[in-house]
């Protein structure tokens, strides 16, 4: 019986390694986790780089609606979560694609993510109440909103996702992953420019790439590199 074990194995987490604080993979650069992994909703809202005041101005008063339209990964949900955190009386609902429309609680404003999935009957019922609305949607719902008497402000997302936004949001995530006092790595503006030239306005794509970059440096030492000229695995050449 022949066997060939692979060599791609994780370092056992319970082995104390000389020079690695507490056996944590990124303790060497003073981080307790890979900053570019999945966050909780609360943390996403907390770390969002969003001009909340501008968005909030669009939902002042009755029958005011803000629409956020954009492709996947452009920051619709992040903006929604930031607004949810901003308004103490807001309520947020995410409409699942493969589940029937669930409960929708009143809120001021009422934030509906993936609003294009609202069943027509439910949409009319919600719009008829007249609460201030923030809708994240792939489809423009202006007509239905105006028919219900709403003033609508629409933002097409993606154009503002430039290198400065990438820089700030990445460095906020890094700061939120700090392990203890002292310095933590920082993404440079040069790195951010390179990422934008590669991924355009796709923030989710950038975060996915950075996750792999940081992951490749678990239990490493020296200086954290966020953008490599040669990427392991799926080959990114910059």
């Amino acid at each position: 019986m022949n066997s060939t074990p692979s060599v791609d194995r994780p370092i056992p987490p319970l082995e104390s390694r000389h020079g690695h604080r507490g056996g944590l993979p990124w303790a060497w650069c003073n981080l307790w986790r890979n900053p570019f992994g999945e966050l909780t909703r609360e943390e996403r809202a907390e770390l969002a780089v969003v001009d909340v005041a501008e968005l909030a101005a669009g939902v002042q008063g009755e029958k005011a609606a803000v629409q956020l339209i954009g492709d996947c990964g452009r920051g619709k949900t992040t903006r929604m979560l930031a607004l949810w955190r901003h308004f103490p009386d807001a309520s947020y609902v995410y409409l699942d694609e493969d589940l029937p429309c669930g409960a929708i609680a009143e809120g001021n404003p009422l934030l509906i993510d993936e609003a294009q999935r609202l069943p027509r009957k439910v949409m009319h019922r919600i719009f008829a109440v007249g609460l201030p609305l923030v809708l994240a949607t792939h489809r423009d719902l202006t007509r239905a909103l105006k028919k219900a008497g709403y003033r609508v402000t629409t933002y097409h997302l993606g154009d503002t996702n430039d290198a400065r936004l990438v820089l700030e949001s990445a460095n906020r995530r890094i700061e939120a992953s700090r392990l203890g006092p002292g310095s933590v790595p920082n993404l440079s503006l040069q790195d951010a420019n390179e990422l934008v030239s590669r991924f355009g306005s796709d923030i989710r794509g950038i975060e996915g790439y950075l996750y792999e970059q940081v992951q490749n440096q678990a239990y490493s030492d020296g200086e954290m590199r966020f953008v490599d000229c040669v990427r392991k695995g799926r080959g990114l050449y910059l």
Partner: protein
Amino acid sequence: MAKCDLSIVLEKDADFIYDGGGTIRGKVRVDVDQNVKCNGLEVESGWKTHGRGNVATGNFTSVTLFEGEWVGGQVVEYPFELPVGDWPPSYHGHYLNIDHCIDARVKIPWGFDPKASVPFLMRPTCGPEAAVSEKSTKAGAFVATFVGVFMLIWCSGFLFFMAQNPLSLVCVGIFPLLFLGGYAVKVWLPKYLLGEVTCELSQTVVTPGDSVSGELVVRPRKNVNVNAITIDFQAREVCVSGSGSNKTTHKHVFFEQAIELEKATTLQAGQERRFPISFALPSDAPYSIELPSNRLVWATTMRIDIPRWPDWTKEIALQVLPSGEPLDPSARPQATLRGTDAPSSLASEGEITFAETANYLWSARENPDQLEALVDAVTGLSFRLEAFIERRLLYAGTEDPHLFKGGYAVWAHFGEPPLPLVLYVPQELGDEFEQLGRDRWIGQGTVVGWDRRHQRLQIKLETR
């Protein structure tokens, strides 16, 4: 700016490995910038995942170290001693990471609550019974039932349409026929050549370093040439991020071992061939883990590679679990993730208050199986309860059968613990609730179930 800064110092060095079920000690240090009223300095031990999967968390025990006033310029330290949970274990992989942690938080009225957190490593000392999850088997049974019901409905519809209009076969029949075709290719065609292949492992619950043995038995119906008979022994992380249309599954294989049972050969018709299986787990194999959105899976895939024909394959999952002696239940911290079974007193009406019920449900909220059992035990019971109203529902959801005719639903929570509730308000109580706003309501209600999507206990209110 925060009125005070928190930091946590553990008694042991950062690389110390704590035993599951043991004790962790340390100090919470508070540097006070301005005079501040503290409604509670809470410290708790728990765990959280990080990586590509949705964050899963759990906590074991929470204690309040201080309540009162701090004066600007003060530096105060509060020692603590907390139980260490015994599952899940610390793990650091590619997409999945699990860390145990001590979290501290100051509750400040009308202000942001300062927080601090420090991770630590935990090695389980519990036995396998503490780590086994039945969720996967339940999910499998659910999927099988769903597919069965779906096929039954489809077959009925298919026959009906065929009788009405044979042309509709093209529209109605094409997708299920493709499905059946795929199933035939995967299952029936290999079986046509090989007959019934049996493959068994001596044990599927193992510990790191264990040897696994078994046997693959084949008696083909015809002479069959095979390229090879192999076993792919694999461990992978499976993490899910997002939900609905944004759901992404990330898989990472971190251990793989190809075992060749037989090279290219011809299996003779009617002749039984037995192939012994034997392989060993690495001594440092991480344990199987089953957490919400985050799994670590060990599995073996048997394959009979038939040239120019669909291969025969079978996957057998292995549960890699700790081998430690089971902990003495009496020595366990009270609030563990697994908790205890529903107390027998829950089964009899009138012997338990709503506050006790809320406490049980609150402590089981991280454990779906236990929660389900508790909800089943209290469903149908009527309680005198106190609830704090949160907000009215504009729409209660299509799947919600509990609404009263002419009534509506509100979200609310119990006081302590703050167990989330859905209250179904009858028309007769509508005015009372309108006037209440977000105040406290006291009255009678019957537990009717659990809203899984919003993690709330469902209660139908009774008119006085």
